């Protein structure tokens, strides 16, 4: 009976109810979009790193979310030889140096990630499902030359084609000799150039960003990482799960920021619900007096007003999830065009979280109006016109 009454009460003022529900929907929808970015990034990282990453990644010092996403090369070059010298002892099958450089532009179309890899390295060994879509891959004799193979997404996003020149600095430019792709996004979104060419272009002869290691027994990666750490105390050795963990840590940091922004929207939504309920209670004081006169207890009115707030929030939350889903599709369309990755995902836990937050919001914003309704004086309420 109480839910029917609550529903009827809300529809007595359809425009006000709809606008309030819309306010909640926008608040919840924006929260869903913001938080779905984190969910999407987690999924993307898990699929990318988990399936194609190296068995061990080597960094200079510890690898954590606050310092390790910069592309400043820090690993002294001699560690490459040192690690190769230890290959047989630790069952290392491949040692690959990597120099990364991010060239920021004013728009995503002008921003590029350069990956310097030994030109002799067969990229098909590094990236699963690697394929050359046009032109060719790097060859050993490309080392030191200004040539590049670019990911299919980069080519599409920046409208690049074979033969075009990519300028890295005033003196250095790279000719595109191949367009490549793989089943994951790292290659698709990078420009791969010979290691020595990139070192020359950047003026960094003796430093690397990372070194990757392939192992004979990948299952022992964690154990080998510990042993290597004892030999090379200045280096950090990360397994795939370590890398994922650090990335997760980074996503969590952004979670807090996104949640903070969402909270502001939610507070505005909660104020809208509270305002609507307060107005409703004020307008219905006489009706509440009648209801009390014919035998309703104070707690009935308390429950009624709270039910209305919850119902309003719940309907708003459902609409918000749908709105968020639509927004997320739009975000993914843009992200797919720009970087070839779906960066937002609507997971069941996110839907549950959004609805739970709306429930708490309804509960909090309905409390004061509900207390007020429960405390009316019957004779005074009924005397009101």
């Amino acid at each position: 009976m109480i839910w029917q009454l609550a529903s009827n009460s809300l529809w007595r003022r359809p425009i006000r109810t709809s606008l309030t529900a819309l306010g909640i929907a926008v608040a919840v929808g924006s929260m869903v979009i913001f938080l779905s970015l984190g969910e999407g990034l987690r999924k993307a990282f898990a699929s990318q790193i988990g399936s194609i990453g190296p068995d061990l990644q080597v960094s200079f010092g510890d690898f954590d979310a606050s310092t390790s996403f910069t592309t400043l090369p820090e690993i002294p070059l001699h560690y490459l030889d040192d690690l190769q010298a230890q290959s047989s002892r630790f069952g290392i099958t491949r040692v690959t140096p990597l120099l990364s450089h991010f060239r920021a532009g004013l728009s995503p179309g002008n921003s590029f990630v350069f990956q310097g890899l030994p030109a002799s390295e067969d990229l098909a060994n590094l990236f699963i499902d690697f394929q050359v879509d046009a032109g060719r891959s790097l060859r050993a004799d490309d080392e030191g030359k200004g040539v590049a193979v670019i990911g299919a997404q980069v080519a599409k996003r920046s409208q690049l084609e074979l033969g075009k020149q990519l300028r890295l600095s005033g003196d250095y430019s790279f000719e595109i000799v191949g367009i490549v792709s793989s089943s994951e996004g790292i290659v698709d979104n990078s420009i791969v150039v010979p290691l020595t060419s990139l070192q020359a272009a950047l003026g960094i002869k003796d430093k690397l960003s990372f070194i990757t290691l392939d192992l004979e027994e990948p299952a022992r990666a964690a154990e080998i990482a510990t042993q290597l750490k004892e030999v090379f105390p200045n280096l950090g050795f990360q397994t795939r799960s370590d890398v994922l963990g650090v990335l997760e840590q980074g996503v969590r940091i952004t979670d807090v920021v996104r949640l903070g922004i969402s909270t502001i929207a939610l507070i505005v939504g909660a104020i809208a619900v509270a305002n609507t309920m307060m107005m409703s209670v004020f307008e219905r004081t006489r009706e509440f007096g009648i209801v009390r006169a014919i035998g309703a207890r104070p707690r009935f009115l308390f429950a009624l007003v709270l039910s209305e707030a919850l119902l309003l929030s719940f309907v708003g939350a459902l609409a918000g999830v749908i709105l968020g889903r639509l927004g997320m599709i739009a975000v993914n369309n843009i992200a797919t065009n720009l970087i070839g990755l779906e960066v937002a995902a609507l997971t069941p836990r996110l839907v549950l979280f959004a609805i739970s937050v709306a429930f708490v919001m309804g509960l909090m914003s309905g409390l004061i109006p509900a207390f007020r309704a429960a405390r009316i004086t019957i004779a005074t309420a009924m005397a009101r016109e």
Partner: protein
Amino acid sequence: MLRAQELSKRYVLASGTVQALKPFSYDFSPAKVTAILGPSGSGKSTLLNLLAGLDSPSSGSILLDGNDLSQLNESARAELRLKYFGFVFQSFNLINILNAWQNVAFPMGLTGLKQEKRKARAFELLSHFGLGERLYHFPHKLSGGERQRVALARALANNPEVIFADEPTGNLDSKSGAMVLDALFELAAEGRTVIIVTHNLELAKRADEVIFLKDGELTNAPVELGQPAIP
């Protein structure tokens, strides 16, 4: 039996204390219609509110079958009103978001009666008052007389012992008013206590007992009523 013992009500305002009802004692007999008369501001509605447990007395007590209402808390008073009292108001006071049968069924819902049963009883009561064709009409689609009959049906929903009517014919045409009054007198004839606050002298003449209030005090009734003011 509803009994008022030294019942009084005073309001403390910024301008001073107002004695809305001076100590009042009276036994309201079952199976009788008692009319409460008096000019505006004489304390009629205050008395009705106190008797019905809608307001708390400043002093004195209200006894229903020996139980003192004034000693009960809000929830207990609500339960008592729900089970033992029925109300008919001048301005009908139906719940606008509920249709006719839902309005009648509402007090039954508060007792926890299942929907099928309360719907059946609401239909029965409304049909009894000639509203069998208006079951699904909302209050704004009903005439004044029809609304007051819905209110009467609602007042009887939980089969109360006492019916309080505050100017029940005040907003009705003479035909509808007569119909409502007949219904109230029928209820008294069935054994219920019916207490009516009114300005209507014709109604007062039909009443079994008359209480005349002036300045918050029981006083002599107008002679045209032909009844003693103070029993």
